[in-house]
């Protein structure tokens, strides 16, 4: 037991005798860290909170509530996608039909002679149909041109009209 105690004491003395090496730049390191920790806190401008809350308010208007959750997002995005696709199909469908195969309008059908009977020959039918179709095409073109003329003053954004200037009114 005594031997053990003596050896422990020896070890402790040796540890005390050995100095822990201190790096040369120890003091500099401490000073640098002190400098950094003493840097002043940067204060926020007085309108900081209001600005953030305004931005949050603008965001939350378009944000679904908790109850809607992810399903709400999914449904909303799905509906938007369907709308876009439907609008695209409608647009392209319309463009193609006016260029290639214009459908006869009910007004022109009324203008067709009432005494037309099924006794007429097929050749006569074809010529009549052709003339009706040509008329339709012409009318549609006229309509579209007049619509474009009307819309010249309109803004490029659909659904919004530009205010006419005073000069224009005078003219």
């Amino acid at each position: 037991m005594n031997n053990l105690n003596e050896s422990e004491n020896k070890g402790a003395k040796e540890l005390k005798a050995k100095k822990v090496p201190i790096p040369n730049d120890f003091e500099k390191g401490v000073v640098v860290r002190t400098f950094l920790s003493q840097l002043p806190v940067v204060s926020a401008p007085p309108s900081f909170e209001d600005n953030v809350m305004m931005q949050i308010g603008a965001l939350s208007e378009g944000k679904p509530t908790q109850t809607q959750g992810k399903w709400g997002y999914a449904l909303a995005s799905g509906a938007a996608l369907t709308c876009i696709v439907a609008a695209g199909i409608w647009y392209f469908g319309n463009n193609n039909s006016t260029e290639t195969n214009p459908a006869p309008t009910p007004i022109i059908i009324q203008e067709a002679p009432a005494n037309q009977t099924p006794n007429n020959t097929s050749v006569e039918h074809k010529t009549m149909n052709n003339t009706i179709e040509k008329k339709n095409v012409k009318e549609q073109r006229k309509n579209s041109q007049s619509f474009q003329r009307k819309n010249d003053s309109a803004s490029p954004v659909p659904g919004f009209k530009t205010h006419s200037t005073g000069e224009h009114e005078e003219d």
Partner: protein
Amino acid sequence: MKRKKDYKEWNNKSDEELMRLLQQGERDVMILLMRRYKERIITFIFRYVGVYETAVDVAQEVFVRVFRFCNTFTGNDKFSNWIFTIAANLARSEFSKALTRPKLTLDANYEDGDEERTQIIDESYMPDSRVDSSIAAQIIQKALMSLPPNHRMMVIMRDVQELSYDEIAMIEGIEVGTVKSRINRGRLQLQVLLRSLYDELVE
């Protein structure tokens, strides 16, 4: 608007509890979170980017993102780590954007025969005396700005914000060893840069 009683009640709650309330739709909780963190976040970003206005803008964006992505906060981690991660990412991207911005401006000078004059912007960092009123603070900030961005970020987190090595490792998503070595390198560079201040102190 919330009553004062609600704010008092919320004041005793932890950040994580406030985040749970925010996730349940209590938008006004953001005011309390801002009061707790705005100065720390602005200071942190300012020390990194060096421009007060930019720091305030980025800090605002940080809080807006806290609100926008509050549902992604799981609560397993500390809120402070989460918000500092957002702040560090935004500050870093803002700083890199500022670096890539064109450095030449065309300044029209109509007095000298309608000539357009090219003005080269001084790229060296100018200290913001509104924030750092003392000369020592300005010198330290200038020294910080001349560190490489990665080292600067770590040194600010450790020595200015007093975050632990583990927290920094978590925020940056890197090993603790890498954090320690970067901080050490940053401090060594600062020792060289701040020699004049040190000599003044010793004298």
